């Protein structure tokens, strides 16, 4: 898939009210170029709902609806089944944030994956509940300062490590699981295309840096997703029926410190905390790539 072959049609229109430099709009706009017009979008409560889909100010040019926070999996299952019964092949896509996937929506998501519903579930991961004011989620990395885990004298930010959601979904042995980053555009588009063409439950997990919550300059959004991959904080892989089929390995691994430096949420880090996070990354690196970093 080449960038030049992408269509010019915009199904997520400009004029939405996302913060300058938000990572989510380029993700959904480019993914919609692949999915096309014959798509139904569902979003639970998340930033994407607030800036792109509050009635009557919609940015979506495709059928779009939203319900409660926790039932993304259940809602898209029902819509997909009704459409298949009518003999329609419309894509049904649920786009949830990390809160709606890691914490609140995991039971409905797990159920839909287990039943192998014919839907696409997208988690765009900005590593905290940004929409309600930067509260910690299961996805927030170790040590990050959020409003519910502030870095102060009692605790140095979040005390626990990030949960590996993509691995949990891979363990469901669904037809397709992929982790993506918009900074690697060609890989991103290939995976979106593959997800469109596979039948059954498909799970896409995309990193979406948040300048407001992570506290960095808005112009660095894409650079942050690239650095996340290069440092090993984010890994790009594809899995089919539980088997990993494709792994992207960065050409040169950068120390995790380089990724942390630009972000205000990690500003309080002591050398010991950097070491602890590096240990976690190295462990994950070894588990995924099967070799010492």
């Amino acid at each position, binding site marked *: 898939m080449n*960038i*030049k072959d*992408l269509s*010019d049609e*915009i199904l*997520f*229109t*400009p*004029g*939405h*009210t*996302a913060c*300058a*430099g*938000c*990572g*989510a*709009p*380029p993700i959904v*706009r*480019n993914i919609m170029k692949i999915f096309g017009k014959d798509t139904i979008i569902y979003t639970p409560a998340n930033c994407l709902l607030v800036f792109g889909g509050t*009635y*009557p*100010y*919609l*940015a*979506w*040019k495709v059928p779009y609806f939203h319900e409660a926070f926790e039932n993304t999996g259940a809602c898209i299952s029902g819509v997909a089944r009704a459409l298949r019964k009518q003999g329609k092949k419309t894509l049904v896509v649920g786009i949830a944030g990390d809160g709606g996937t890691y914490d609140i929506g995991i039971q409905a998501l797990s159920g839909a994956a287990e039943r192998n519903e014919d839907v696409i579930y997208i988690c765009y991961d900005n590593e905290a509940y940004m929409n309600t004011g930067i509260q910690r989620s299961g996805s927030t990395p170790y040590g990050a300062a959020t409003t519910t885990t502030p870095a102060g004298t009692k605790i140095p930010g979040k005390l626990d490590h990030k949960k590996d959601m993509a691995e949990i979904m891979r363990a469901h042995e669904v037809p397709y699981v992929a982790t993506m980053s*918009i900074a690697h*555009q060609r890989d991103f588009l290939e995976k979106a295309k593959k997800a469109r063409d596979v039948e059954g439950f498909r799970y896409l997990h995309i990193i979406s840096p948040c*300048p407001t919550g992570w506290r960095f*300059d*808005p*112009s*660095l*959004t*894409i*650079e942050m997703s690239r650095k996340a991959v290069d440092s090993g904080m984010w890994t790009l892989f594809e899995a089919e029926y539980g088997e990993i089929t494709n792994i992207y390995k960065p050409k040169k691994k950068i120390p995790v410190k380089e990724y942390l430096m630009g972000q205000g949420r990690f500003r309080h880090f002591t050398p010991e905390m950097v070491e602890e996070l590096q240990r976690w990354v190295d462990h994950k690196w070894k588990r995924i790539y099967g070799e010492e970093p």
Partner: protein
Amino acid sequence: MKTAISLPTKGAMGKTGTWRVFRPTIDLEKCIKCWRCWIFCPDAAIARNEYPVIDYDYCKGCGICANECPVNAIEMGREEK
């Protein structure tokens, strides 16, 4: 009776270009037409023509295009009002 149907159009929430503090300008002589700015712009404010064209009605001035441009053809200058 009013129904809960919304007809989405470009700029339904207003012209977000008024948020801009820094204004991008493209040096067309340097541009190599790689379309990275076009794919990464969060506001779809860059259109594909012969060369990239910026829609200042919606550009929020985040600077992603200038940062990602491989040949530094895009420059951010302070908005004058």
